[in-house]
């Protein structure tokens, strides 16, 4: 039965995301540990790496904040499953909350009521992108509250230019201190509009650590920003040290001549994600 199989793959993907940190992130954390000269910062990285092992070996969530379940869907226009996918995702989230388990994190802003299953108005949120073909590719991003609280959008005067963007990003990341659970991954969205800049920032967070923007100028901008942030000394968990961020990823849209929107999306070290590929004939694959 397609539905049961697909739903169970979606639950698997949420389990993989919650319990197994992707290898690019683990490698980046290990490299940060090797570089770390502050004993306090090193102790934080040791605790993080030990925690990651315990979570993977025991198949238990690495962080008690299992996040808001967010889905990025590249939907092939010829896939036969498009019409039913949102419903399956909703049901899979309810199932995953019980099975993994996930912390029930969705709360009604007006009544304070928590339905207990990570669903609610607009939740789980699905970002749709229409693509050619008959395949559906889904990325699961469980995003924690501590780092999301540190995300922001700034509407800069265009006159400040690229230097103004760098200054604003570094000042913001440094002002966050230990609150977003550094070492963080910083997604920077430039241009579009207020909402688009934030969306680009979140999309940038999805990229693997070590990947660079295909345009050399933007890739260089990413490297410079990372270097600048790590000169701050905020360090792991804000207790001081050499690594405040593991990566900076930038995505850019054209902008209105009067606007320079800057979205800054902060992801904690627990950069959890998993991928699902669903073919037109219903074969399905879950990867980190």
């Amino acid at each position, binding site marked *: 039965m397609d539905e049961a199989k697909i739903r169970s793959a979606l639950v698997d993907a949420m389990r993989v995301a919650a319990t197994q940190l992707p290898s690019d992130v683990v490698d980046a954390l290990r490299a940060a540990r090797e570089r770390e000269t502050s004993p306090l910062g090193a102790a934080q990285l040791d605790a993080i790496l030990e*925690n990651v092992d315990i979570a993977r070996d025991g198949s238990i*969530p690495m962080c008690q904040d299992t996040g808001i379940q967010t889905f990025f869907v590249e939907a092939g226009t010829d896939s036969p499953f498009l019409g039913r996918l949102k419903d399956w995702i909703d049901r899979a989230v309810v199932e995953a909350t019980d099975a993994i388990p996930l*912390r029930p994190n969705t709360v009604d802003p007006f009544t304070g009521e928590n339905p207990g299953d990570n669903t609610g108005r607009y939740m789980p949120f699905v970002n749709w992108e229409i693509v050619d073909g008959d395949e559906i590719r889904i990325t699961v991003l469980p995003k924690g509250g501590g780092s999301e609280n540190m995300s922001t959008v700034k509407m800069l005067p265009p006159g400040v230019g690229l230097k103004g963007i*760098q200054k604003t990003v570094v000042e913001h990341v440094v002002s966050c201190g230990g609150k977003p659970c550094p070492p963080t991954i910083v997604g920077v969205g430039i241009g579009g509009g207020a909402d688009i800049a934030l969306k680009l920032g979140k999309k940038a967070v999805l990229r693997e650590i070590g990947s660079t923007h295909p345009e050399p100028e933007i890739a260089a901008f990413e490297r410079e920003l990372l270097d600048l942030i790590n*000169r701050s000394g*905020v360090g792991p968990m804000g207790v001081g040290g050499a690594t405040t961020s593991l990566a900076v990823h930038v995505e850019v849209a054209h902008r209105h001549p009067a606007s320079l929107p800057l979205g800054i999306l902060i992801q904690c070290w627990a950069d959890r994600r998993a991928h699902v590929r669903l073919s037109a004939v219903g074969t399905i694959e879950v990867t980190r």
Partner: protein
Amino acid sequence: MKRELTLPIDEARTRELRVGDILYLTGRIFTARDEAHHRMLEAREADELLPFDPSRMALFHCGPVVRKAGDGWEVIAAGPTTSVRMELFEDRFLEAFRPRIVIGKGGMGARTQAALETVGAVYAHYTGGAGALAAGRIERVEAVHWLDELGMPEAAWIFAARDFGPLLVTMDSAGGNLYRDLEPTIAENMKSILARIEE
């Protein structure tokens, strides 16, 4: 200094703890985030008796993942939440209930610092996100209060912990504050970063 402590601990012992100490706690810990803080402060105002004695336990800013296991509960993941949200009322909370150790992440503000000094308590940082590591040091759930009213993350969970740590003291009762100590270095670094950008 590495210190293995058994709870409850008294005020004199707490006042010896200093920024930079690494603590491993054995004994009872209760969780409280925004809602449990409110609930307990309301109880105090109404002269309502609390179902547990917070002064004999460590306060843990944590919204855990727990699962029913038979008649009791099993802790799945229980790392710290961002403490500064509780800055709005932590000074009143400390004065009312006198837990000697506050566990959380990210540090707290000037009001809490002042209350730590008055009451004789410390703030200890636990590695953010280390929920699986923390769960392994919790031997059992002894009780849960206001679960139906507040929900799983916001309820007050009473944990029996063994060697719960490493906890890094970042704010102590003698005015010591690791975050404040770092500020001049970071400010100095920011100056050179901004100069580099302007180059």
